[in-house]
């Protein structure tokens, strides 16, 4: 019963917190509130772990601190709740659906080693176990924030319903983001493009596996989709720049706290959007600082094996110096930093190609596995990438939507980042690797991080093919106002 009450409380609090940031866009209100709740859970757990070191502790202290902090943060938004009927309906509706699926139908995660590890740690956390258990290399690989969310119960019970709830949040963000991007197209084109993409994506197994699959991928996907949507259309969706920055920081923090490669993905996203029109150096510095602070919080709370000896103080010092360095370059040579940010995809591509050449032999098996998983249907992704490939190739011969180019640049760079993250992970004990054949290969699962962005990009791609002369279906769409990521800003421009 506590589980259900807690879930309903979180659903209402998500709306109350979300509507303080964005009022009119339900597809962002509820997920932003939920992301804030995840961050609050980590923050209050960190406080509990700190208090435990001071011998201040009582049963379920972390749970009560979490509830108190959520109430405190929700209070300013309570006045808006009566006007948020739809958001409340959606939010509580997710809880009802998740409860029905999990408790009534008994649907649960596909059994997998990482899931079992996460579930075991979640039980340990809800039973009041020490945070330091999560500081070993194998536990760090399973992430942090999701374990804490699942471990919100009391007395060694888990709240498994969070998985379908997170999936639901990701679904509404993707739908809202897609509709926003597609507003320049006619309804008919929107329906055809969406139907085509939905059919090719949802006839594959992976999106269905992700509904209940216990791992951080869905939460990372939610964070990334919210961040990218905010970076691209924040100027239209949010009332203030502060609200935009707050949302971006929330998303980046959740991405960083959820998976070991999260910090890298977050930093790359910051670099990709650092040059967008309207972005200020302070936005970039605050975003980087948020990622570093989130990462350090995780590492210190779990007493990470990474922070042994001198590293314990050298790492935070290095991070402070890095932020200071970025600030200094912004101050004195802004052109240089803008160029560096604009070159991020090229830099990552160069590193990736370099590693492919240096470790040609070692990577052959991984490269083959990658192709087998993504293009031959062994990775539970079906054959959807063939379709995406066709759309991408056609886009070179058509009048491209600017947003398509932007999204492709973001997707491509994040994919490269995942390759490098996997190489580092697999290379810990020898040569780098790009995984093995099967849906449960970690790189293969990492592609789920980009499912929201992939779907939106694919829908735009299909729509631009449909509206081109190529298919003789010539409805010229209105151009969509979005940010330009490809041209670095001149010194001083909009900064």
């Amino acid at each position, binding site marked *: 019963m506590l589980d259900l009450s807690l879930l309903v409380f979180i659903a209402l609090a998500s709306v109350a917190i979300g509507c303080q940031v964005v009022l009119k866009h339900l597809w962002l209100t509820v997920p932003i509130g939920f992301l804030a709740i995840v961050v609050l859970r980590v923050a209050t757990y960190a406080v509990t772990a700190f208090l435990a070191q001071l011998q201040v502790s009582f049963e379920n202290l972390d749970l009560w601190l979490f509830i108190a902090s959520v109430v405190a943060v929700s209070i300013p938004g309570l006045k808006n709740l009566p006007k948020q009927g739809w958001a409340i309906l959606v939010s509580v509706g997710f809880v009802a659906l998740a409860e029905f699926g999990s408790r009534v139908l008994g649907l649960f*995660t*596909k059994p997998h080693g990482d899931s079992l590890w996460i579930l075991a740690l979640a039980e340990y956390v809800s039973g009041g176990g020490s945070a330091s*258990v999560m500081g070993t290399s194998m536990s760090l690989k399973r992430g942090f924030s999701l374990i804490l969310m699942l471990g919100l119960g009391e007395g060694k019970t888990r709240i498994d319903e969070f998985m379908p709830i997170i999936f639901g949040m990701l679904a509404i963000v993707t739908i809202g983001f897609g509709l926003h991007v597609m507003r320049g197209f006619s309804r008919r084109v929107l329906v055809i493009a969406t139907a085509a993409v939905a*059919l090719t994506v949802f*006839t594959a197994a992976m999106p*269905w596996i992700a509904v209940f699959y216990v791992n951080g991928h869905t939460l990372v996907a939610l964070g990334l989709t919210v961040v990218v949507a905010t970076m691209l259309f924040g100027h239209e969706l949010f009332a203030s720049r502060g609200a935009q920055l707050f949302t971006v920081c929330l998303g980046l923090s959740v991405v960083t706290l959820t998976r070991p490669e999260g910090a890298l993905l977050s930093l790359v996203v910051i670099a990709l959007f650092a040059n967008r029109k309207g972005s200020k150096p302070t936005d970039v510095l605050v975003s980087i600082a948020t990622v570093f602070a989130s990462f350090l919080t995780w590492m210190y709370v779990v007493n990470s094996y990474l922070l042994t000896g001198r590293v314990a103080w050298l790492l935070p010092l290095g991070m402070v110096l890095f932020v200071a360095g970025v600030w200094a370059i912004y101050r004195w040579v802004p052109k240089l930093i803008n160029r560096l940010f604009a070159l991020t995809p090229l830099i990552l591509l160069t590193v990736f190609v370099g590693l492919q050449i240096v470790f040609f032999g070692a990577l052959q098996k991984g490269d083959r596995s990658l192709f087998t998983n993504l293009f031959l*249907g062994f990775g539970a992704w079906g054959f959807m990438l063939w379709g995406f490939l066709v759309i991408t190739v056609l886009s070179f011969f058509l009048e491209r939507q600017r947003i398509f180019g932007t999204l492709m640049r973001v997707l491509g760079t994040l994919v490269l980042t995942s390759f490098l993250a996997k190489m580092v992970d697999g290379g810990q004990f020898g040569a780098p690797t790009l995984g093995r054949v099967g849906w449960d290969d970690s790189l293969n699962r990492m592609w789920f991080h980009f499912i929201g962005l992939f779907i939106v990009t694919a829908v735009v791609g299909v729509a631009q093919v449909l509206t081109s002369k190529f*298919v003789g*279906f010539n*409805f010229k769409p209105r151009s969509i106002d979005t940010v330009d990521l490809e041209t670095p800003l001149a010194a001083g421009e909009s900064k």
Partner: protein
Amino acid sequence: MIAQQGRVVKKFKLSKRLVALVVAALLIVSANLFLTKRTIPFQRLHGYQTAAEMIENKNWNWGLAFIVSLNQGEVTLDHLGNLENNGIFIPDELAQVTNLQLDAKVPPIVLSAEDSFALRQIAGTSATISKTRCLNRGYKYCEVDILTNDSVNDSPKRFVGVRLSANVFGLVEAQLLEKVIGQVN
């Protein structure tokens, strides 16, 4: 062309290229449905299960600590040896989660084929089979047989690591093992 609310909208016209695109999409959908290996995207549980119960059903590669804990409670495991060359490996965090005490200073005791046979022949001896990572980091997993005998000791507190064959290990209840090989340090 049809004029609609001040907008000019062209009629839907099927070109060969549009048909080709639709066919391509349908081919992908059909391939997704009929050419890929069928994967059940989730499992169905009857009621809430603890992680240990799920781990036992799944025969998880890392499940040894949970299986021992689920069946024997909070016990001590010694003579585990090290992963690199002579023993089996239970991650510290999983031992902590399951309240097991580990002692990996000494390698597993190597039992002769006769002793292994004699151990299993003692009336009332039962074996629970699990597995864990063993004998180097090359992603190799070994079978681990957890041997107990209620008539010898019905409240076990200590299990001793043994090597039953080249890549089969055992965790044998200490008093049961002593019945076969004598005093165990």
